[in-house]
């Protein structure tokens, strides 16, 4: 008979305990998890990138639905536990349901501190703790306006940077004279303040909040000195305290947190506690690393292992604000018994300070260059005697022992318990063990197995180096392919940096990302041009010289240097007038070949370049516009006749096809995009080999994605079902936008789905409604500038030099 394990709380600590437990002993318990939030377990420390728009909720999910199913964990989300009956060994939910347990884990986490000032409960005052808070902030940021963040610590600064990135004008109010004073010394605090201010964020230090003012909702923050800062949104980020309410009401011993021993046992032998809610040897923790240490100990307990208990943690801090590198660990107060080694490079904004006591590292503060953070931290934890390397200590690990170590040797030299991935608490030994034990060979496999580098990605290169060091020659650098020979970064890395560094022109990208050629090459230039258009639809000026000829002249070049012209036929529908106009154009310009294409329209082949504007003008006059048959963009929406005519048709497939083509036309995408809408599952429009295919059924619309029928043939995967045409349009546009924002240039949609995983796309589109709506919004916004007829513009004279020779030299008369 399996024992019953009940977990109160579905945060990172609880999730980690279960991960560790299932690793050790998968079938020992029937597990039920009660979560107060109405969602699966996610990586709370990655909420900042979600707020900044660098990641979506789908990206930060730790355990998706499939995980709960596979591990047979009953997840009762949105059901907070309000009482524990320790005599009966049951827990009770807010709705009155009761659940028995043999062992109980209290993982109730912490609560944000609300400073008790007048107005703290006004509408528009939020905290920064969970996804609902992020949603509230994003909703507020959508309207622009002013935000005041109270608290200049880790969380407050991340919130401020996120809100500023979202376009709000932001002030940070901090009680102490320097930012993050508990983690940074005043020098690093000063550099940090400057970097924050350079992002347009106002920093007010040594400022005490007296009241939050406003009538119905927040209007401003009143400071002690009488100043009032106007605000449409106030974020309280002054700290957290352990959430002990449930434990206390159940009679468990609590002080600041729920008191536990070295084996995470509370005062009741059947009840454990873990994570931010606990107090261990008088210490409470609000960072992720200690919580992982505790989870390991607790999982061992539950599995019946004998092992060393938890002995407390020394913590280190990293700020997750893109572009600001900052690390701190240990004790860095100035004191007589401490020695300091300091390096400053003001021009490069680098500051490093290592604090020594008796030739041992007791603290480190790094700003600007944090590569050696893990190394100092490791020596700090181990109490290494640094006397032999004191001269070169401040230069970092690669300067120790004569010649600098190459990166592989440096990683190989790290001890097994050196932390590699701070976001997910993964140390070197775990990764090496996963690689050798699990036969892993790629970074994706390591990521899937250990979560190392799966969150913020900063440690990706370290993990990769570890693969190299572990596998040696057997490691083939699989997926990490630089974009081209002009740069060392991958497509994905370049895309991410264009967004986070706000690079808005080709020269800016090439300068900031260290291009090795002066103006790129034929493979990176079109890719960058696309990435910039996609990232900055309003700010970026399309660079036609970086487009392939077809997109530059809006026609397809043929083997003899002539062009082909394909007007749009919306959903494959045409009219006698349109056909007459096409016939007239073919006659007048002596177009040699007229062909019906596979995408249900007509191709005019063999048009001379200088005739193109006149051909377009005549087609325009009959209402025909560019079909973008030459573009990495929306090509065709193929349809069958559907319920208008077909005796089997279930929905108006022609009508939906036309609407879809009108919605999507003109958008630039990483590679061409072909769609189809079939009126019934007989699928006459061949929707199951398109990038996106809709198959109408009686009850609505089945949405398929990731098909192909070219060099590579691949049937689509079912993404999901929607009931209405409006929903079909919104979902399809959202998929296209997600593809636009994420795929590497020239990757067809199916390739992107193969790389990123269908499940991730499905979660982002079908389950995460807010995310889908946001994608759809962004698509619609970019379409406002993209949905134009390039033919009409050129028929009217734009880029005319593109279509005419520079000069015509007539035969010279004999001299």
């Amino acid at each position, binding site marked *: 008979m399996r024992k019953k394990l009940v977990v109160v709380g579905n945060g990172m600590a609880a999730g980690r305990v279960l991960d560790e437990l299932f690793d050790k002993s998968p079938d020992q318990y029937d597990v039920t998890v009660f979560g107060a939030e109405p969602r699966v377990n996610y990586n709370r420390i990655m909420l900042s990138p979600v707020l900044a728009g660098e990641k979506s909720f789908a990206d930060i999910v730790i355990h998706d639905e499939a995980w709960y199913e596979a591990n047979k964990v009953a997840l009762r989300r949105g059901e907070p536990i309000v009482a524990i009956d320790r005599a009966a060994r049951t827990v009770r939910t807010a709705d009155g349901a009761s659940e028995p347990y043999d062992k109980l884990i209290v993982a109730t986490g912490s609560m944000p501190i609300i400073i008790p000032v007048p107005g703290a409960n006004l509408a528009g005052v939020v905290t920064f703790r969970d996804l609902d808070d992020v949603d509230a902030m994003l909703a507020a940021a959508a309207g622009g306006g002013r935000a005041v963040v109270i608290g200049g610590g880790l969380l407050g600064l991340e919130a401020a940077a996120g809100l500023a990135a979202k376009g709000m004008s932001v002030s940070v109010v901090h009680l102490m004279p320097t930012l993050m004073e508990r983690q940074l010394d005043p020098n690093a605090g000063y550099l940090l303040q400057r970097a924050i201010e350079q992002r347009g964020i106002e920093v007010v230090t040594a400022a005490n909040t007296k009241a939050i003012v406003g009538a119905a909702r927040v209007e401003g923050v009143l400071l002690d000195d009488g100043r009032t800062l106007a605000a449409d949104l106030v974020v309280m980020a002054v700290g957290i305290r352990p959430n002990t309410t449930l434990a206390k009401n159940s009679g468990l011993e609590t002080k600041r947190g729920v008191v536990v021993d070295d084996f995470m046992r509370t005062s009741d032998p059947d009840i454990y506690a873990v994570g931010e809610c606990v107090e261990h040897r008088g210490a409470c923790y609000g960072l992720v690393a200690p919580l992982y240490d505790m989870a390991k100990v607790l999982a061992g307990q539950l599995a019946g292992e004998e092992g060393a208990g938890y002995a407390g943690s020394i913590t280190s801090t990293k700020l997750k604000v893109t572009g600001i590198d900052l690390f701190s660990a240990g004790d860095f107060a100035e004191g007589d018994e401490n020695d300091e080694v300091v390096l400053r490079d003001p021009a490069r904004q680098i500051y490093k300070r290592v604090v020594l006591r008796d030739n041992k590292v007791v603290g480190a503060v790094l700003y600007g260059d944090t590569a050696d953070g893990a190394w100092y931290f490791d020596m700090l934890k181990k109490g290494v005697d640094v006397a032999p390397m004191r001269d070169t200590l401040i230069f970092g690990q690669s300067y120790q022992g004569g010649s600098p170590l190459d990166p592989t040797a440096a990683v190989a030299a790290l001890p097994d318990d050196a932390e590699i991935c701070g976001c997910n608490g993964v140390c070197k030994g775990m990764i090496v063990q996963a690689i050798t034990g699990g036969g892993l060979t790629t970074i994706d496999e390591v990521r899937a197995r250990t979560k190392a580098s799966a969150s913020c990605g900063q440690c990706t290169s370290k993990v990769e180096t570890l693969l190299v060091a572990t596998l040696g020659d057997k490691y083939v650098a699989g997926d990490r392919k630089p974009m081209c020979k002009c740069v060392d970064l991958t497509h994905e890395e370049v895309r991410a940096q264009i967004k986070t560094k706000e690079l808005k022109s080709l020269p800016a990208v090439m300068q900031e990302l260290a291009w090795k050629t002066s103006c790129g090459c034929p493979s990176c230039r079109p890719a960058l041009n696309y990435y910039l258009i996609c990232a900055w639809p309003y700010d970026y000026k399309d660079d036609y*010289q970086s487009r392939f*000829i077809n997109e530059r002249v809006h026609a397809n070049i043929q083997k003899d*240097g002539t062009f082909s012209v394909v007007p749009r036929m919306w959903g494959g529908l045409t009219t006698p007038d349109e056909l007459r106009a096409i016939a007239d154009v073919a006659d007048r310009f002596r177009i040699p070949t007229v062909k019906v294409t596979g995408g249900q329209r007509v191709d005019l082949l063999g048009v001379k370049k200088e005739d193109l504007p006149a051909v377009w003008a005549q087609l325009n006059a009959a209402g025909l516009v560019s079909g973008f048959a030459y573009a990495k963009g929306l090509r065709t929406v193929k349809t069958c006749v559907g319920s208008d005519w077909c005796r089997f048709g279930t929905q108006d497939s022609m009508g939906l096809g036309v609407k879809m083509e009108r919605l999507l036309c003109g958008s630039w995408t990483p590679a061409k995009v072909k769609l189809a809408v079939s009126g019934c599952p007989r699928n006459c429009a061949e929707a199951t080999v398109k990038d996106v295919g809709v198959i109408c059924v009686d009850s609505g619309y089945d949405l398929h994605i990731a098909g192909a029928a070219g060099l590579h043939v691949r049937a689509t995967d079912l993404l999901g079902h929607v009931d209405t045409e409006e929903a079909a349009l919104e979902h399809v546009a959202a998929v296209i936008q997600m593809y636009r924002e994420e795929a590497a240039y020239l990757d067809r949609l199916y390739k992107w789905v193969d790389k990123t995983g269908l499940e991730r796309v499905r979660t982002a589109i079908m389950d995460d409604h807010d995310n889908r709506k946001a994608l759809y919004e962004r698509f619609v916004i970019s379409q406002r500038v993209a949905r134009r007829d390039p033919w009409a513009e050129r028929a009217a004279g734009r880029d005319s030099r593109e279509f005419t020779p520079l000069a015509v*030299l007539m*035969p010279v008369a004999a001299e």
Partner: protein
Amino acid sequence: MRNENRFWFDLGPMDSIPKRGARTVRTPRREIAVFRTASDEFFALENRCPHKGGPLSEGIVHGRKVACPLHNWIIDLENGEATGADQGCARNFPIKLKNGRIYLDMGVAAPA
């Protein structure tokens, strides 16, 4: 000889060709592609890729090279030679810049 007696044909102001771009000059015998690089160097080649005759003027100009639009052969603008593993040469013609105007040697109009 011919070199001393060049007759330069005025093609117009340099800004009539976009940076990292090209325009064509039509002559009775052949079409010439005139290229302008990012750093305002000008080159003239016969507008025929040595591979399959593709119009080099339609290619993407990068550094002192152009990529043929048909099959992506990379042609060196200075001498018309194909680069890399490819073999072949597009004929090049003298060109010069004076007072912001582009001049092409009239030799292009002469029989090959």
